[in-house]
Every structure is written in structure tokens, then in C-alpha cells.
């Protein structure tokens, strides 16, 4: 068997699943977003759904909110993960517990984390009760609005909680592969602890950090259940808005849902290209 056939056979099942299911789904969505749904008597492709979506102020706000959620969560998660990974590389009492919890967190589904954050940070949640017990507040309303809030603080807190361990574990594994000799070399050449980190370790961690961050960004941008549990009534995160339109009993809203799905896919496509660029550069 020639290599060509071998490669083809090896790849065939995976490409079949991804090609038919995933790209087939995207194509179906794309066709429907152009108002082409013969079953419903829609046979004239048009850009109506896109026009409706882009002219709706709710969509604009949702898009901005989702971008804000994804960007803020990713930045915070990456920074804290970097800090935590550096911390976990050093020895201190409780390091093993912290490392274990890091891994444990990886197994906790997002939806559980979202509910936990809700019980912690709502205005009548655990922190509000602590604030009451310490006489900082008298009524729940005096506690800052951290969930169901227009700035999506609760949603971001949940992502930070979940994604810090994800990025952190990737960083720890990368650090293990890099070893400490590069930093030692830098230190012996006169770099301070901070300089060795800043000029040597960080650049070496960067490809891993960036590609992990892109995965996080894409997830935070496109997840449904977390903003559905922790989000405010308005504006809603883009996936929530899209799903609402999809399940709207008015079938005319479906092409709009598909159009929103396509916008999400389009932004993700940009992410994929960024990911490839970054991992390519890292590989060199």
C-alpha cells in the first residue's frame, strides 16, 4: 500500500465525521441564514436575516457583550494562570493540594461552576451574607451586583475560575519541558529573577499561552449555558440571543438565529487563523 492510500485511509473516518457533520452543519446553517428554507416556502435566497440582525440594536449590544466577556475572561485567566503556574512551580506547603485542585477543577463542568459562582456572588449569596455578618451591609441590595449584571462580572468570574487551571496546567507542562536551565543561564548572566522571567521564560511560554488563550477566548465567546445562568436580562450574550431566536415559536426568527450562528462562526474562523499563526511560530 502506498503512503498516499495509507494516509487517506487513516484520515478518512475523522474527515468524514468532521467534514459531514461539522462542515455540513455550517453549510446548512449558512444556506438557512440566507432565508433559504424550501419547507417553509422560503425559496428566494436573500440577505434579509443578516439585515435584520445587524440593524437590531439588541444584536449589537449582544455582540459587544460577548466580545467583552471573552476578551476580559481570557486576559484575566491568562494573567492569573501565569502567576499561578509560576507559584506552583515553586515549593511551599500546600503546593500539592493546590496542584491537585488545579486538576480537579478541570473535571468540574462549567455549568456546576456557574451555579457555584451564582451561590457565592449573588446579592443574597455567601459573600453578601458574610458582608452582612460583618455589618458591611444591611440589605442584599447594598451588596454590589456581581451576577445578572450588565457588565457580566459573574460570567467572567466563572470563566476565570474554570480557565485559570486549564491555562495553568498547560503552562506547567510547558515549563516542565523547558526546564530551569534557561533561567539559570540568564540569572548567571546577570538577569534578575524578574528579568529572567520576563526576557527568557515568558517568551518561551508565549506560544503555549497564546494558543491556550485562543481556545479559552473561543469558548467564552460561544458558550451558552454559563451566560444563560449568570447573565442579565439585557443585554444577553450572543449565544443566548441566538438560541432564543432559534427556539422562537415564530419560525421566521430561525434564519436570524442561523445568521447569528454564522457571525459566531466567522469570528471563530479568525481565531483559528490566529491560532495557526501562533502555533506555527512556536514550532519554529
Amino acid at each position, binding site marked *: 500500500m502506498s*503512503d498516499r492510500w495509507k494516509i487517506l*485511509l*487513516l*484520515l478518512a*473516518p*475523522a*474527515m468524514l*465525521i*468532521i*467534514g459531514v457533520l*461539522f462542515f*455540513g*452543519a455550517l453549510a*446548512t*446553517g449558512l444556506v*438557512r441564514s440566507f432565508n433559504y428554507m424550501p419547507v417553509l416556502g422560503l425559496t428566494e435566497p436573500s440577505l434579509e436575516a443578516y439585515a435584520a440582525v445587524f440593524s437590531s440594536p439588541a444584536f449589537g449590544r449582544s455582540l459587544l457583550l460577548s466580545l467583552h466577556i471573552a476578551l476580559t475572561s481570557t486576559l484575566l485567566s491568562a494573567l492569573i494562570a501565569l502567576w499561578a503556574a509560576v*507559584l506552583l512551580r*515553586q515549593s*511551599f506547603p500546600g*503546593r500539592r493540594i493546590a*496542584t*491537585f*485542585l*488545579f*486538576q480537579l*477543577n*478541570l473535571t468540574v*463542568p462549567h455549568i*456546576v*461552576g456557574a*451555579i*457555584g459562582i451564582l*451561590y*457565592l456572588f449573588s446579592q*443574597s449569596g455567601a459573600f*453578601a451574607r458574610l458582608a452582612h455578618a460583618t455589618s458591611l451591609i444591611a440589605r442584599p441590595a447594598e451588596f454590589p451586583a456581581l451576577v445578572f449584571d450588565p457588565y457580566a462580572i459573574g460570567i467572567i468570574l466563572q470563566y476565570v*475560575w474554570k480557565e485559570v487551571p486549564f491555562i495553568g496546567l*498547560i*503552562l506547567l*507542562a*510547558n515549563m*516542565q*519541558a523547558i526546564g530551569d536551565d534557561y533561567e539559570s543561564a540568564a540569572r548567571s548572566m546577570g538577569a534578575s529573577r524578574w528579568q529572567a522571567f520576563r526576557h527568557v521564560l515568558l517568551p518561551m511560554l508565549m*506560544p503555549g499561552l497564546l494558543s*491556550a488563550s485562543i*481556545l479559552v477566548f*473561543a*469558548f467564552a*465567546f*460561544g458558550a*451558552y*449555558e454559563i451566560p*444563560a445562568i449568570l447573565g442579565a436580562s439585557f443585554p444577553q450574550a450572543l449565544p443566548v440571543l*441566538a438560541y432564543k431566536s432559534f427556539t422562537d415559536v415564530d419560525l421566521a426568527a430561525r434564519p436570524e*438565529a442561523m445568521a447569528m450562528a454564522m457571525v*459566531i*462562526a466567522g469570528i*471563530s*474562523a479568525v481565531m*483559528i487563523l490566529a491560532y495557526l499563526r501562533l502555533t506555527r511560530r512556536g514550532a519554529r
Partner: protein
Amino acid sequence: MRSLRLLSGAVLITWLVLPLIPLAIWSFARGWRFPDLLPRDWTLAAWSYALSGTSGVLASLGLTLGIAAAATAASIVIGVPAGRALGLYRFRGKTLVQLMILAPAIVPGIASVLGLHGLFLALGLTNTVTGVILVHLIPTLPYMILVMAGVFANFDTRIEDQARSLGASPVQVFRYVTLPAILPGIIVGGLFAFLISWSQYILTLVIGGGRVTTLPLLLFTFATSGRNDVTGAIGMIYILPGILILALTARRITGRSGAIAGVGRA
């Protein structure tokens, strides 16, 4: 310096477990209103409901485990060969193939599942367990393939030639030489696949149509209906298998294989 590190560690540990604590307390609470720091009445009612047949939690646990196990197994069976092709060979269009495989890991479920619903409907796969398993492959396969491609990139095929020259059949070569060599990667990739399927919400909701009631769907229903006690109990039941699996595979994740680093590098 050292005390700062200690403090940072304490903050980190606290932050990591914090959200799970009120969830656990709620599961034993009978009402827990502001401003009580702890519930006044403790009860096992939520647990007894969650563990009763009516709630369907245990059946759902079994179903969720089954779906995740099946999606993981299918990801392994499909992902290992693809990872081998990508890790070992250079060929024309490889970049495109990589791009296609990477895409489902990054494009959120909501973007593809709405279109997928129409497709599955036409195939009669909506509202079926089979359909849900299939749709879970979309996000699990890329991780499996990326991890395996990394493993195979460091795999020397001469070891297989050596085994063949010592008289092993292709099946024996796979069983006794290749499989042990790539097993750490399979475990890590499989763990990823399992966890992704295990926590999947929107794909199951849309394709399962409510008929395939996995734990996240059940949890969502209770969380959005104000039964914090039942939510707490289901939440606790939901995170248990993950912890067990972690306990079995923890060393592989951060161990020497470093396969998790591959997700970052891919």
C-alpha cells in the same frame, strides 16, 4: 518572600474550592435565606430526592457516563489513526486537513449545532442517544487527534519495523509495540474527550431535544427553577465521576509525557 508565597498559595487554594462549598451546603439545607451564614435546618431531603427513581438523576448519571464513554471510545478509534497520519507523514494539503480538524475545537457548539439540527432531523438522528454521541464527536475528536498527532510526531516507526522483523504480525505489532508506546497519549486524549462530552450542554440540548436527558440538562432545569437544594445534590453527584477519573489518571496529565502541553502547542 516565603510568607508571600504561602499567602498566594492559600488564596489560590481557597479560590479553587470556593464555588463548590455553597453548592455542597445547599444540598443539605432546608431553606437557607439571607442573612443566615449557614442553614437553620439541615436535611437529606434533596439527596433522597436526587437518589430516588423519580428524579431520574441516577438513570441520567448512567446515560451521561455511557454517552461520554461511547464518545470517548469512538474518538479513540477514529482519532488515533488520524493522529498517526498527521504526526508521521508529510503530504499535500496537510495544512488544510489540520485546519479542518482544528476548526470544531474552536468554533463554538452554538454556531454549528443549529445547522446540525436540520441535518440530523433529516437523518432521523435527533432525540436519539446515537445522535447525541455522534454530535459529541465534533468537539472531542479535535482534541484526541491533536494529542495523538503530538504523540506520533515523537514516535519512531522503526520500532514497528523491528517488531515485524522479529516475527510479529501487524496486529501483534499494534497490540504489543505501538499501543503501549502511545497509551499515555490515548489516556490523556481520552480524558479530554471524556470531560468535553461529560460537560456538554448545548449540543445535547439541541440534538437530544430534551429526550436525551443528560446530567447537565437535568441540573440546568433545577438550577433555573429555584430548587437550590436539589441543584446542590445533583451538582455534587455530577462532579463525582470526574474526580474519580482524575484520581486514576492524574499522574498522566502532568507527568512526564507532557501530553497536555501538546494542547497548547498542537
